[in-house]
């Protein structure tokens, strides 16, 4: 805190003469820069410029940290290759936005002459879009440089709209658009996000897009400084059907559905697997999660046990049920005999964490422990010998038998007893999620013991996860980390303790968790960066 103030004094000096951000109170610190994900970028552009604008380009991939890709947005930057793509997209969007077709809709003023600069109209346009793109008003410097650019471009090209296009393009490839710059200001005994940063954090969490006009206005009028103001916006955002979009992005991240980009199955052993099936499996899981969490406002623990799911024609063929073509997606309820249990036996979870030609209890176990119990497994030691496990000609016929060999080896046992049992209980399903009862001619044993509890099969596993208090705590942890863009393994439980309690008290309802979490004091709380003292040296470069 003291460090922060001294830095602030130092930086104030540097600030002088360079222009100040009007929205930042004195002593404001950038505490986080979160690179927009592809979906956030697309949604933001769609909301700012309309759905007609085509966005075509390559987005740099994220990296999963603490189980969430969102956490890496705060750590990754933009490479030259990535910037090249952003630059081209920026120009393409600007071209479309200033095209003859779109002008009437998107440019709210008419220039004095279509071939001469018009600073007033340019300024009006850049102010309007700059505010939405940067998620805060432009500084006078930022505005002036764009107006000047537009004027020069207009003179060079003889078209006002061409000038406008280059000015818009410069906004679209600015770091202030590509990164969600979260600024914190001192308050009470700590730092908390400033109003515009609050607006952005709420908007991207609930709707996965840029703050809309009402949110920006709430930031501008300081309505977001009070809990009542926050509550009003939270209620509004949660009441909208757009909440589905935001929560889809969250569940997609938490459930690691992006793994489907890399899943491939042996086409001779599993010819039914296809790219269409993978896409369908992904959608099935998202629908299940969203329906339970938002539409039914149900008990999230049932995600582990529910017999209900959604299928399309492709999934019906894998699940071995007829499809009635009433709609592209129809609900399906499994019978108890089918042995399914919630999300853990959906094709997504079973196939993403599994080999191309065989199932993998270890991979499934590791993944589910990480995703649902927030218990990641360390990587295996470097000198491990896999040959015994992977030898199907062995007298040990089932994967289970081969994995049990690990239990006897102390180097292996600690991790494998930690996560294998989950995967073993799911061995009743093959690598693309279809049921089976034998492996290499031998009956599969799906019993398991983990953390002292024994259960049989997927339904036993579902029950185990349902009753495990670590699961709802993990959901809360992941949601909190996702919203803040931090590593879920580093977050302290006390930061979201109240929210977790409220989650439980409400009967594990997602909406309650969301509301409580976003309205808690911790949600906008921020730590100023530790190495702030070094900033002065780097800034002068």
């Amino acid at each position, binding site marked *: 805190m003291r460090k922060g103030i001294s830095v602030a004094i130092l930086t104030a000096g540097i600030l002088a003469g*360079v222009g100040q951000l009007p929205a930042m109170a004195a002593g404001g610190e950038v505490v986080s820069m979160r690179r927009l994900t592809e979906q956030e970028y697309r949604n933001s552009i769609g909301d700012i410029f309309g759905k007609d604008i085509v966005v075509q380009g390559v987005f740099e991939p994220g990296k999963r940290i603490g189980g969430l890709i969102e956490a890496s947005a705060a750590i990754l930057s933009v*490479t030259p290759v990535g910037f*090249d793509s952003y630059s081209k997209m920026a120009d393409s969007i600007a071209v479309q936005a200033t095209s003859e077709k779109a002008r009437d809709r998107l440019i709210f003023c008419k220039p004095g002459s279509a071939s001469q600069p018009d600073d007033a109209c340019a300024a009006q346009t850049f102010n309007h879009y700059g505010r939405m793109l940067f998620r805060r008003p432009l500084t006078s410097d930022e505005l002036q440089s764009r107006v000047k650019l537009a004027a020069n471009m207009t003179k060079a090209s003889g078209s006002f709209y061409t000038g406008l296009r280059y000015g818009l393009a410069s906004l679209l*490839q600015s*770091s202030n658009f590509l990164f969600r710059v979260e600024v914190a200001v001192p308050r009470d005994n700590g730092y908390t996000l400033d109003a515009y940063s609050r607006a952005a954090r709420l908007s991207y969490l609930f709707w996965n897009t840029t703050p809309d006009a009402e949110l920006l206005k709430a930031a501008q009028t300081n309505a977001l400084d009070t809990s009542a103001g926050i509550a009003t916006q939270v209620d509004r955002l949660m009441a909208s059907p757009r909440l589905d979009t935001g929560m889809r992005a969250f569940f997609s991240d938490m459930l690691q559905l992006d793994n489907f980009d890399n899943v491939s199955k042996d086409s001779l052993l599993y010819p039914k697997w296809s790219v269409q099936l993978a896409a369908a499996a992904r959608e099935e899981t998202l629908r299940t999660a969203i329906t339970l969490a938002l539409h039914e406002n149900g008990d999230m623990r049932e995600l582990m046990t529910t017999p209900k799911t959604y299928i399309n024609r492709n999934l019906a063929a894998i699940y071995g049920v007829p499809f009635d073509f009433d709609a592209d997606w129809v609900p399906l309820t499994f019978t108890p005999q089918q042995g399914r249990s919630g999300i853990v036996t959906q094709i997504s979870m079973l196939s993403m964490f599994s080999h191309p030609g065989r199932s993998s209890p270890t991979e499934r176990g590791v993944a589910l422990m990480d995703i649902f119990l927030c218990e990641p497994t360390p990587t295996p030691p470097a000198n491990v010998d896999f040959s015994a496990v992977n030898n199907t000609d062995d007298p040990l016929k089932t994967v289970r038998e081969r994995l049990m060999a690990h239990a006897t080896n102390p180097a292996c046992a600690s991790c494998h007893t930690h996560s294998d049992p989950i995967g073993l209980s799911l061995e009743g399903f093959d690598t693309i999620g279809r049921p089976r009862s034998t492996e290499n001619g031998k009956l599969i044993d799906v019993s398991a013991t983990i953390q002292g509890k024994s259960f049989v099969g997927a339904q036993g596993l579902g029950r185990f996860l349902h009753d495990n208090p670590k699961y709802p705590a993990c959901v809360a942890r992941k949601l909190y980390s996702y919203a803040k863009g931090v590593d879920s393994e580093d977050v302290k439980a006390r930061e979201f303790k109240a929210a977790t309690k409220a989650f439980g008290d409400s009967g594990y309802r997602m909406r309650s968790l969301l509301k409580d979490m976003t309205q808690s004091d911790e949600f906008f709380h921020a730590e100023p960066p530790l190495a702030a003292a070094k900033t002065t040296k780097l800034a002068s470069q």
Partner: protein
Amino acid sequence: MKLDRRFLLRGTCQGALAVMGLPFLDCFLDNKGQALAATGKRIPTRFNTFFYGLGLTKSLWVPKGAGRNYETTEQLKPLEAFKQKMNVFSGSRVMIDDNPNFQHWSGVGASATGMSPSKNGQFDSKTIDQTIADVISRGARFKSIAAACAGDPKQSYSSLGGPNNLPAEASPLSLYTRLFGSGFQDPSRTDWKPNPEIMLQQSVLSVVAEDRKRVTQRLGASDQARLDQYFTSVRESEQQIAAELKRPDIEAKVEIPTAPEEMTVNSALPNMRKVLPLMARLGALALATDQTRVFNLSISEPGSQMFVPGDPLGYHQSTHEEPLDPVLAYQPRVARYNVYSMELFAAFLKELDAIPEGDGTLLDHSLVYGFTDVAFAKIHALDGIPVLIAGSASGRMKTGHHIVGEGSPVSRVGLTVQKAMGLSVDSWGGGSMETKSPYTELLA
């Protein structure tokens, strides 16, 4: 946000991971396309298409194994010399969805646009060469050039979509005149002019770079480093543009020949064997001297009318009229024609590979996309429609592979090609063939 061990990631240069401290700049500079011309400037990557009608014979062309060490099959033998510089794709599928199955056309549309055409003889969108030309042809004299070895200007598979194709030059003389006749601007001349659009883009970047002054003060060290990296990327982009503003320094060691004579250009095989090397050579010279960066060569219409003089049953009719030999289980005469097509393809590649450039050849700095209209011409089957690619796009594409499609849409190949050419594209194609999955094993 806390700084700790988690923050200092173990980065790899291939991914988009952040690394703190130096020399991260080197890690992230694009190592592709760094081949330098004799003068030390970067050589652009070129794109070519090669169209041959009537496909190949499955049992004679598909290699047994997949991956790098596949055995050359009988019909790929003419291309043996270029095997290590090529990738061959078998098992690709065309999904026509609710469009009619146009004989000899659905396959062309699917290969060139990634979507099944809704009208016969028309493309439903811009073809792949035009999509790529939009990006790479900035600064070249011609956006693209098309040539037809069978002498018909309609034999062009280069289109902006709809009923019109960009017409092809139908004889070596007309191709020569177009490229090296009046209007030919020798790059070593002093009155060369840069593309004005590029200059405008430069101004945009300097405004973006100015933002730096405002943001850098109140950042933590890690965010500072990330922002530094961002601005380094901006700077890279500025430099790239600055390079484009200079006249091309491509001093290919080539000599522009004199105009070729008039000759008969038609579908007779001996004539094609004479015409193709000439057209290919002219095309290669055009690429080498930056007259264009996209060259499209075709040897036939869909349903090729290639014939051997004296044999009235030409290629197309052979595919329909020649029965399957009950012992061989293929059509022997058709198989011979397939091989003639591959020989012509090899002759094209030979011309590209014969021009040395920087540390390799023109072929190394190109991608050649060889496509056709059907998988099994006799019954117009599309399942297994072949695609053959040559060149490594200046190192951005790994070569020497046989990729087995296993029923993947043929659009995956086109997407892979566009990514290797450096296009900022995440998906390609339409309908059931719309794909976001390139063959990542081929992308360097």
